[in-house]
């Protein structure tokens, strides 16, 4: 538009305004027009600014909610929320605006954030509310909150959902705890094993000397000597139980119905608890049979029930419960983990004095007891722990001081154990292995484990034969798997001769049923890798591969 035409248009516009407003003076009209112009510009700028802030408000990954205080700053009403906020809290903005925070989030007071809102509104000082768990009937999750007050009095909460991070941290912490627990129990096991050997020698000396005194004397002296012998027998009993914890038992395992074992326990052992302890059985139908030593199930029941009896102060109810459980991912507890699969769960529950958080990490340690001197040996739970380790199961518990305890014992289903071995994929190989054991059955077992994994196998039934076989297959043999104890030439000696023959160190994996032949997975004589009999097929396959790859 040309400038003249533009000037005319503006004049017409002013005249129009003059007619509408009844103003006469051109000066007045011009001033008013300017105000209108400026207002329009300001409005446009405001709209632009609003759009900019709205996009900032929405674009951040964090939830932002704006509140107006009501009831003198006691409660807060939603004025706005951004899209991430809607997503985090799983709620639509339209269902929120104008509503009280205490109404939409009934857990906000318990969560602790309402107090922060009130403080920030009162003082104007912004505050960060550290990561905490929010929970109500509708939503739950770990939240990190930052709260501040706008100059016009509105309150703003900027928050983040850190649930996934928190869960990952928690899983890692649990894993660390388990590892620590396993290492601690292993160390305690080694210590117990050493201590019991020493103690048995000392006790043998004491019993022997006391027996000699008894034989050489009469009257009070002989009686006193008898007293010493009796005390030594009690000490020997403690040592035996300590050993039950540390020692790898050769359990007589068979397919066992856990419910039947519990019922048998009630029939035979429960009467011994007297009338003041009442037992309630709650046995689930359809339990998987377990692969276990029935006498050890009984021992577990006995130790846990004695524990409950003590926790109850001798009077009360002990509940024995069984359940079928199945995990589709690894089950973790502070006392160990279980691979996915089917289990029969045994629970022993009482409403006794419970276990405090301080006691909890120690309950499976030998000699840890909360009972008075002479009331308990502190070996009941460690023995349970040892038995479950042997059964590839798990014992764990839930308890609170003063609120009773529930011990949970997971026994792997028999079907599970037979399935577990071939299922896990330990890589095999095509190398040639020389296996030597004087027991043909052991060679047969190794053959069943290793042949399907692709290895070529050569066999020897003695150390001497192993050396001979090696001589004729020198070039092919990649690894020796030797029993340590064989009549004549033992594994270590055979290995030494073979190395001499080869003029180099030949890879070897030793095996023995005698656990003291090894220490930390190495032969205690020569320090070479070691695998314990009886074999876990996966373990043998894993070790063979590891030594070959070393």
């Amino acid at each position, binding site marked *: 538009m040309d400038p003249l035409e533009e000037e005319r248009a503006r004049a017409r516009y002013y005249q129009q305004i003059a007619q509408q407003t009844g103003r006469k003076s051109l000066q007045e009209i011009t001033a008013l027009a300017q105000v209108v112009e400026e207002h329009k510009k300001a409005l446009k700028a405001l709209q632009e600014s609003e759009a900019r802030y709205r996009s900032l408000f929405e674009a951040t990954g964090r939830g932002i909610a704006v509140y107006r205080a009501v009831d003198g700053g006691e409660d807060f009403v939603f004025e706005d929320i951004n899209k991430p906020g809607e997503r985090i809290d799983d709620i639509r903005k339209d269902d929120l605006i104008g509503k009280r925070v205490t109404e939409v989030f009934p857990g906000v007071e318990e969560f602790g954030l309402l107090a922060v809102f009130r403080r920030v509104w009162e003082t104007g000082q912004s505050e960060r509310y550290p990561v905490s768990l929010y929970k109500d009937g509708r939503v739950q999750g770990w939240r990190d909150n930052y709260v501040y007050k706008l100059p016009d009095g509105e309150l703003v909460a900027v928050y983040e959902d850190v649930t996934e991070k928190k869960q990952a941290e928690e899983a890692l912490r649990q894993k660390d705890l388990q590892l620590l627990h396993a290492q601690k129990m292993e160390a305690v096991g080694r210590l117990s094993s050493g201590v*019991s*050997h020493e103690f*048995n*020698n000392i*006790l*043998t*000396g*004491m*019993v*022997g*000397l006391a*027996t*000699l005194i008894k034989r050489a004397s009469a009257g009070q002296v002989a009686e006193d000597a008898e007293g010493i012998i009796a005390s*030594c027998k009690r000490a*020997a009993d403690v*040592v*035996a139980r300590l*050993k039950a914890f540390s*020692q*790898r038992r*050769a359990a007589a395992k068979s397919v066992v119905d856990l419910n039947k074992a519990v019922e048998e326990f009630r029939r035979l052992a429960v009467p011994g608890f007297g009338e003041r302890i009442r037992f309630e059985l709650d046995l689930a139908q359809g339990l998987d049979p377990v692969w276990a030593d029935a006498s050890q199930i009984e021992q577990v029941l006995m130790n846990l029930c004695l524990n409950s009896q003590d926790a109850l102060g001798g009077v009360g109810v002990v509940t024995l419960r069984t359940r079928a459980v199945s995990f589709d991912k690894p089950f973790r507890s502070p006392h160990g983990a279980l691979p996915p699969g089917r289990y029969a769960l045994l629970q022993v529950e009482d409403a006794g004095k419970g276990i405090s958080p301080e006691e909890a990490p120690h309950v499976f340690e030998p000699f840890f007891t909360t009972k008075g001197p002479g009331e308990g040996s502190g070996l009941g739970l460690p023995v349970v722990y040892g038995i479950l380790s042997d059964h590839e199961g798990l014992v764990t518990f839930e308890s609170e001081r003063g609120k009773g305890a529930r011990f949970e014992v997971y026994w792997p289903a028999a079907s599970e154990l037979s399935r577990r071995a071939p299922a896990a994929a330990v890589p095999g190989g095509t190398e040639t292995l020389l296996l030597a054991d*004087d*027991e043909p059955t052991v060679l047969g077992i190794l053959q069943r484990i290793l042949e399907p994994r692709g290895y070529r196998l050569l066999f020897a039934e003695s150390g001497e034969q192993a050396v001979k076989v090696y001589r004729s297959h020198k070039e092919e043999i990649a690894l020796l798997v030797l029993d340590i*104890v064989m*009549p004549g030439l*033992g594994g270590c000696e055979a290995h030494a001769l073979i190395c001499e023959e080869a003029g180099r160190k030949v890879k070897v994996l030793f095996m*023995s*049923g*005698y*656990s*003291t*032949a090894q220490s930390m997975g190495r032969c205690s004589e020569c320090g070479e890798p070691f695998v314990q*009999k*009886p074999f876990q097929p996966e373990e043998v396959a894993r070790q063979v591969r590891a030594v070959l790859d070393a």
Partner: protein
Amino acid sequence: MSARLLVVDDEEVIRQVLSRMMVPKGFEVRCASSAEEALALLEKEAFDVILLDNVLPGMTGLRALGEILARSRAPVVMMTGHFDPEFQKDARLLGASAFVAKPLDFDVLEGEIRKLVPEKR
């Protein structure tokens, strides 16, 4: 002629107690504090029964048992700290004749010894 016992144990008190118990019962008792010492004795003397501790300094356990059996026809009673069936199986395969648990019950031990030397008593 009295039956001859060889006690192999590194604990002095156990060697003493066993001697003092078995001598009055008509046994002749010799002692060794290690498997090596026992092997040296076996080169020179014969015994009717050998009592062998399964944990010794130096040569120990099944290895000591194997070496002793290679040099002697005498039955060996293993004195083990605990009941370990796997160990017992291996030891039996090697040729151990009997097992007694520590701490020793001396009556049981005497019974085992007498079973092994019946013709001499």
